[in-house]
């Protein structure tokens, strides 16, 4: 998939969802904070009002201001408290922290709440007016701890972070999965398209080859007949040339036959056979064409490896693989081993040639693909076609400079 498409359809939507969620979370968090602060302000104002009345009563009873404040500070949520006179001079104060009374008389106003940041956390401060029964006016200054609210906000922040993390992780997993599914679908589509094109190409080649073979065969038969007749009539010194002509005609006929075989649908006629016999027949066939090459073949297959196969076809397939091996490795021995693997029979043909490069290995069984100067790229293709028609598989493995290995897997009997 193109980078641009991946960004457009997966990364950007994911980031968009995440940013939207984060924004919503931040806004919700702020709203919660604002509402909580408002609530606490209201509570503090109410507390200050109640405490103001209590202070007023105690003062009416003649209790010293210091003692009055001691009773107020018994509330754990109150960090500091001060009683101010009408002109806002501090008459008495008390605090949980030594000397800590954060008040600026020039700034503080009645019924006005403020928030003071401190290492002990946020503190809400509130100045409330107090009037005694005899008309004396005071101000009560309170510092109220917001530990509960801060805990709640911190909890909300932790929850938001956890949710954001979850959304991020799940979103990443979801979009990654989606991206992989999409990529896999596109890969499959590409493979299917490539396969379709290959089949189309092969159909065209087959049709062309069948037409050419048909057109060539009739004149070729006539030519062979003419050369036969001519061979009887010509003087002895010319017979050699005529024989050469006949041999060339036979070569052309053989090539045409091979092309015809390639394009035919392989339909094996199965019979019970043993693999060692098939291998030896293939070697015998090879020795008819190249006795020196066949002498380099070492077969390490015990008797009794039974399978159901079409004798001629499978011998042809094995012959093609052996021919490919002896051509790749001009002097070294070719080792052929066979064994039973469960209900399958496995044949391995190893040569000690230059090996098959990876890019060649991927195409080595394609029709008309050859790296040899003389080859037509039919032998291994035909071998694969025959083996697959038997319900088997063939694969080529190679390491550079260490020869090639063809592994044939066939259903056993």
């Amino acid at each position, binding site marked *: 998939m193109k980078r641009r498409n991946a960004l457009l359809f997966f990364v950007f939507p994911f980031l968009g969802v995440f940013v939207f969620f984060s924004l919503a979370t931040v806004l919700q968090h702020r709203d919660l904070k604002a509402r909580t602060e408002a609530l606490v302000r209201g509570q503090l104002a109410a507390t200050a009002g109640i405490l103001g009345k209590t202070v007023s009563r105690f003062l009416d009873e003649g209790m010293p201001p210091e003692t009055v404040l*001691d009773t107020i500070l018994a509330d754990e949520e109150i960090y500091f408290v001060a009683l101010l006179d009408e002109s806002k001079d501090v008459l008495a104060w*008390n605090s949980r922290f*030594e000397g800590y009374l954060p008040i600026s008389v020039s700034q503080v106003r009645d019924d006005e709440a403020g928030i003071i940041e401190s290492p*002990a956390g946020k503190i809400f401060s509130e100045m409330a007016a107090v009037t005694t029964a005899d008309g004396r006016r005071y101000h009560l200054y309170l510092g109220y701890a917001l530990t509960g609210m801060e805990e709640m906000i911190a909890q909300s922040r932790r929850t938001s972070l956890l949710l954001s993390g979850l959304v991020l992780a799940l979103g990443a997993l979801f979009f990654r999965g989606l991206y992989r599914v999409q990529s896999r679908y596109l890969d499959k589509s590409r493979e299917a398209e490539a396969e379709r094109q290959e089949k189309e190409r092969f159909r065209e080649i087959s049709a062309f080859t069948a037409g050419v073979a048909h057109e060539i065969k009739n004149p070729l038969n006539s030519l062979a007949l003419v050369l036969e007749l001519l061979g009887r009539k010509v003087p002895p010194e010319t017979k050699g040339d005529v024989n050469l002509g006949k041999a060339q005609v036979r070569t052309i006929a053989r090539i045409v036959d091979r092309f015809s075989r390639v394009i035919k649908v392989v339909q094996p006629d199965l019979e019970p056979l043993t693999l060692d016999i098939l291998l030896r027949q293939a070697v015998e066939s090879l020795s008819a064409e190249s006795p020196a090459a066949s002498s380099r073949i070492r077969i390490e297959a015990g008797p009794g490896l039974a399978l159901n196969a079409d004798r001629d076809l499978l011998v042809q397939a094995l012959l093609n693989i052996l021919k490919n091996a002896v051509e790749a490795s001009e002097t070294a021995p070719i080792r052929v081993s066979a064994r039973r693997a469960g209900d399958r029979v496995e044949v391995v043909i190893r040569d000690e040639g230059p090996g098959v490069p990876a890019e060649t290995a991927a195409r080595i069984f394609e029709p008309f693909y050859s790296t040899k100067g003389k080859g037509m790229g039919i032998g291994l293709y035909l071998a694969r076609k025959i083996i697959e028609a038997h319900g088997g598989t063939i694969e080529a493995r190679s390491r550079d400079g260490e020869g090639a290995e063809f592994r044939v897997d066939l259903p056993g009997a």
Partner: protein
Amino acid sequence: MNRKRLSIPLLAALTAAAAAPQGGPFYNVDKEIRVEATVREIVLEPRYKGTAPFLVLRVEESGSARAFDVEIAPSWFFGQDVHGGEKVKIVGSLAEKPGATPIIIARELQLRGQTYQLRDKHGFPSWQGGPQHKRGARRFGRP
């Protein structure tokens, strides 16, 4: 706020200062002054009920020779040696009472070229979970 930051002052508050009425001078942000002075005497005095004695420097302002009692910090918190005759610079809140030596509740102390933060700008004591606690150093001068 993290739990650690919160628990230190709360614990301190509940154990030490819960029943510590404070009627003396407080850190009045409206009366903050800056003084350069010479140390004349070093004393430990109980300043707040229920807490450890405080280190108090009796100083003389350079130039005016005006005397001040400078409240520094609890003795366990401020671990530096201070000697008579040493020059100090103090930022703190001034509390004056007729007929008594004026008191400065120190927020910042400069001694031998080093600055010690004793309270925050509102007067919150550093030994009650201030910036020093955040950094893990519980008292100045501790090796």
